[in-house]
């Protein structure tokens, strides 16, 4: 879901940075200093999980795990996403620097939105079926929302990107379903083994 360097216009890059500064400031203000270490280690766990290549049929994919990140980290998710993307850009050469703001918005906004929409409902849900459905919806929505925001950014850069945006959205449907399934399994496991994670 990364947008590569050199694609977005100057205006869209500026909007991305403005959104990132606002989101990170909000997240840092709401993060208790005592929870910084836990936030850092949990975001490392997610960072590494996103590097794991999961074989699906003849192809393979890397999962973004935006919804579990949002559900577990809550309001601290925006700084965690920025840090993960910065480390990817600087250490591994994935993504980029100028586009870092835009990519943080593409991935941070869905994670934060999922945490706000589904966080409480997932915490209070009791039946396994209900938890599975809610977390599947959260996982699917996070990916589609991220693809949608990336699409809007491309369309704002040049309206002729409309065809590519449609393709981007269609291509993300199977990824969204897989993410939804993984989110559902992960949240059900956490509800059973470590419910404090979701509080």
């Amino acid at each position, binding site marked *: 879901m990364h947008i590569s360097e050199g*694609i977005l*216009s100057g205006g869209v*890059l500026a909007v991305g940075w403005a959104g990132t500064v606002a989101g990170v400031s909000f997240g840092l203000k709401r993060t208790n200093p005592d929870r910084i*270490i836990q936030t850092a280690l949990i975001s490392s766990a997610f960072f*590494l999980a996103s590097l794991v290549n999961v074989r699906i049929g003849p192809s393979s994919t890397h999962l973004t795990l935006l919804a579990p990140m949002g559900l577990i980290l809550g309001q601290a998710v925006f700084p965690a996403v920025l840090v993960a993307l910065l480390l990817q*850009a600087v250490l591994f050469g994935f993504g*980029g620097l*100028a586009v870092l703001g835009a990519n943080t918005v593409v991935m941070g906004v869905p994670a934060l939105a999922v945490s706000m929409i589904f966080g409480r409902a997932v915490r209070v849900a009791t039946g396994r079926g209900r938890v599975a459905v809610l977390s599947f919806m959260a996982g699917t929505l996070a990916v589609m929302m991220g693809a949608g925001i990336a699409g809007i950014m491309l369309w704002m850069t040049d309206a002729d990107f409309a065809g590519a945006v449609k393709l981007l959205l269609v291509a993300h449907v199977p990824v969204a379903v897989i993410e939804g399934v993984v989110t559902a399994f992960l949240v059900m496991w956490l509800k059973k083994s470590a419910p404090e994670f979701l509080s």
Partner: protein
Amino acid sequence: MSQPAYTLEFPRVTLTVSKTRNPAVTLLSAMIYALAVSVSRSPSALLLASILPAMMLKGFPPRYLARLNVMNAVMILTLALTWPDFSDGFRTGMIIALRVNMICVVLGGMLRPLGTGGMYEALCGLRVPEKLRVLVILTLRGIYTLRERYESAIISVRLRAPGLSGLMRLKVFACMMGMILLQSSARSENMTRAVKCRGGFAGFMQGGNSAMNARDWLCVSGTAVYAVMIAVMNLA
């Protein structure tokens, strides 16, 4: 032999610290260059912008460049097929591919040698809030700590269930992820106690001599002038 269900693609990273210049200057200059190239479309502006990557191309891993351009080829084809006009889409794709190549060569050449210590110093020099700097360093430390756990978990899954398929593969991945989250939480509690024993985050990690001096600002201004020249050529 069947392919493994999961593999951890952990690229090689540089952990050295560049001592040749202030890392904040490097980070800021790389960012200014990337911004200037991102908004360039005209051939003359792109030609001017290509001077810096041409100087840095020597020593850049050709395998990485080849992989990047395979992705670029897919992108060019996609744009050509989805654009209202095939030739316009192809041209736009080629321009984007050229920009991606130039930015990646410059970022790779400037940022990868910085290493982790250099990056921390760069963040100190750019006056990034301490909470965020601590988050960067601890996330990085966590990546190296938890990497071994992931690798051993993947080996364990391969040994115990080599023929995983369908939903079971995703379920096992989710359980593996859950267990590592639990381990990371336990580890973070120990680290929090250790940090508190040592007096908290005050002076958690001192950035070296990271304040930017007049010479550093001169370097940044040089990059800014280069970026302005690219922008002027683009408008012309």
